[in-house]
């Protein structure tokens, strides 16, 4: 037990009391020892605090679009790392061991959820040995909890392919969902790094104002394609199509995650005369789409599915600039 008094003389004889049997023994420190102890304690406190102050919080996101929204709110005050490379199929990301090193230092992990990451992320989280980001903790944010999902199956079977029991997970491609997701991210950031509350609030307000202004622009542009009919490769763009009243005539995949069969393409050809364009993502093979496009001279529109998937989608704003631009061109 270490006791101190405010009296300097006493201060010099801080007593280190040790119980030894029934008797209490005192140890008097010399002045030099005292200075040493004080220095060590101060140094220790200093190191702990500066480590906490100097270290930027590390926020790891599964996809690039989440990182882009997060960066809008944190500015330079945090290190934001996205794991999945944007040119790859978001369902089948290679679980590289380098991601374990990134997850190990994360203070917050933000995922898309609705089982989009189920094929690659759970094992990485377990391997990262980081208690801060375990499912259900403060450091784990699942964005799918904040939006209403479509295509939630009432009955489920793997005969339906890679069907997601929680509904279609590509909800972030409806631009109107972005402010909702941004709010969830902003609120969680404030919980994780409360001392940055003012900064985050300022950035969040600016972002929402800017994004809402863009939404009006995109909404106006998209009225051009209202009521048209489209085919997509995978059910990536359903939220976008529903938002802007574009009819989905069919998908190139017979069921999600299963590559097209000639039988299925033949079936698709029966409805193709109503179709105005075919939406293709960057990661699926182009051959089936090219075949249909050439045979029926329907334009193929390659759309980014994530920030960075195409060269003109560098952040969350240009992602939708690119999508809206490409559909309405």
């Amino acid at each position, binding site marked *: 037990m270490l006791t101190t008094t405010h009296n300097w003389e006493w201060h010099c004889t801080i007593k280190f009391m040790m119980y030894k049997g029934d008797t209490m023994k005192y140890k008097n420190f010399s002045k030099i020892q005292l200075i040493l102890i004080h220095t060590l304690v101060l140094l220790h406190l200093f190191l702990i605090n500066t480590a906490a102050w100097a270290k930027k919080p590390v926020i790891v996101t599964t996809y690039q679009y989440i990182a882009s929204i997060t960066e809008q709110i944190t500015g330079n005050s945090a290190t934001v790392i996205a794991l999945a490379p944007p*040119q790859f199929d978001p369902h089948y990301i*290679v*679980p590289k*061991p380098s991601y374990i*090193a990134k997850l190990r230092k994360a203070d917050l992990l933000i995922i898309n959820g609705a089982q989009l990451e189920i094929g690659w992320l759970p094992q990485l989280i377990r*391997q990262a*040995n980081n*208690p801060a980001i375990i499912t259900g903790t403060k450091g784990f944010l699942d964005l799918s909890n904040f939006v209403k999902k479509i295509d939630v199956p009432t009955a489920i079977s793997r005969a339906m392919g890679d069907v997601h029991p929680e509904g279609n997970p590509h909800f972030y491609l409806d631009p109107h969902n972005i402010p909702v997701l941004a709010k969830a991210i902003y609120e969680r950031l404030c919980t994780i790094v409360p001392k940055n509350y003012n900064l985050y609030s300022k950035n969040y307000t600016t972002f929402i104002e800017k994004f809402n202004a863009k939404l009006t622009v995109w909404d106006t542009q998209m009225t051009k394609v209202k009521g048209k009919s489209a085919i997509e490769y995978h059910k990536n763009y359903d939220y976008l199509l529903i938002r802007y009243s574009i009819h989905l005539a069919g998908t190139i995949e017979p069921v999600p995650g299963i590559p097209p069969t000639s039988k299925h393409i033949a079936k698709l050809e029966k409805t193709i005369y109503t179709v105005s364009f075919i939406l293709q993502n960057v990661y699926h093979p182009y051959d089936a789409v090219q075949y249909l496009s050439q045979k029926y001279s329907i334009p193929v529109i390659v759309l980014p599915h994530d920030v960075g998937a195409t060269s003109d989608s560098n952040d969350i704003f240009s992602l939708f600039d690119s999508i809206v631009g490409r559909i309405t061109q």
Partner: protein
Amino acid sequence: MKQFMQIVYMLFFISLLLQKGYPQTMADWQTSDPFSQAKFVPDIAAIVDVTYVQRSLDDVTHYEIPGFKDAHSKPSNHENHEDELNQNNGFNLNYVEISLYSQVDPFFDMFAVLHASTEGAEIEEAYFTTQQLPFGFKIKGGKFLSSIGRLNDKHAHDWDFADLPLVYKAFFGSQLNEIGIQLNWIVPLPFYMLIGAEALRGENETSFGTNGFTVENITTIDDANKPNVYTAFVKSSFDIGNYTVLAGVSGIYGTSRIDHGIGNDTNVAGDHGFYGKTYMAIGDITIRYDFNSYQYIYLQTEYIYRNQDGDLYSYDGSINSKSNFDAKQSGLYTQVVARLNQLWRIGLRYDLLAQNDVSTNHDLTNNLPRYSSMIEYNPSEFSRFRLQYNYDKSLYSESGTNKPNHEIIVQANITIGAHGAHSF
């Protein structure tokens, strides 16, 4: 007639109970079961592995890999309970794997993997891991596949071929699967580095073993102190563009008590046993290139070295004798696997038992190769069909002649239920 009437009465009473309609009455009061634990059911999956095998040698277990594996016809005190995969010509039900996984509480999660076959069931793995240890540490305890090497902790359905590389069969029988404890640490570096160590029971019958035995007129060897085997490993990985490199180094140390008949009450010529120390080292590297989401190619190679140093006891038909035994043996495999598209994968594998320096027998062959190729059709992540061809030059008859073995394996591997994603 009396029995018949009893059944009729029983049915009558059951029908009375049903007419009372207890469940319906319950539903009027309560719409949910307050004690239902349905949401806490762990992830359960079942994996079935069936093969059709055609090979040029009738029964491969009657052949030996000189210096590495005895022919099964020799008596052994250590019955190998594990069914060898693809053992019989014709159809084989290799295993039905039942896996269970769940979070236990905020502090632990737990895995259990049971392997059932027509012979019975055994526990392949059953372990817990910690979730809350600070500074990047984790403890794993129970029965598990040791994390040494590259392939050792991978389950059979995660292999790229229908069978294990020769080095694994030669040094571990199958894989190093032991009861024990592991501590691992993710080193806080900008790239991936894992350091780990294990203390294991060490019952592996091929390289270690814990059961003592008596060599008549010479000595009695006591059972081993447990843990009997210790391992340590370092793994590291980095990316360059679409290239991923993963490399590892592992070391294993333990004592060996291998009784191939010498401890039997009545010996026959050729019975032998080994008691001594075993040191092993493993180096592995994987280089993978991802062209896109559905096409990749990777090269994986693993080298295993074993040094066994101790006493060899043998029975020559009339008398037991003891001699110093020092064996330095090693081998490797190299495989290249490519995924052509969402449906098809192809692979080539070269196996070699390269070094066979045994102090008691200088005539052993140094080069024992095997060549394998496979093509795989994956309708989805949950079903896989594989055709594999092996040309195995490692097998010898008891008279000492090399018996090349041509082997064709057609494999179906099917998964149902909730099965977690695999690691890299």
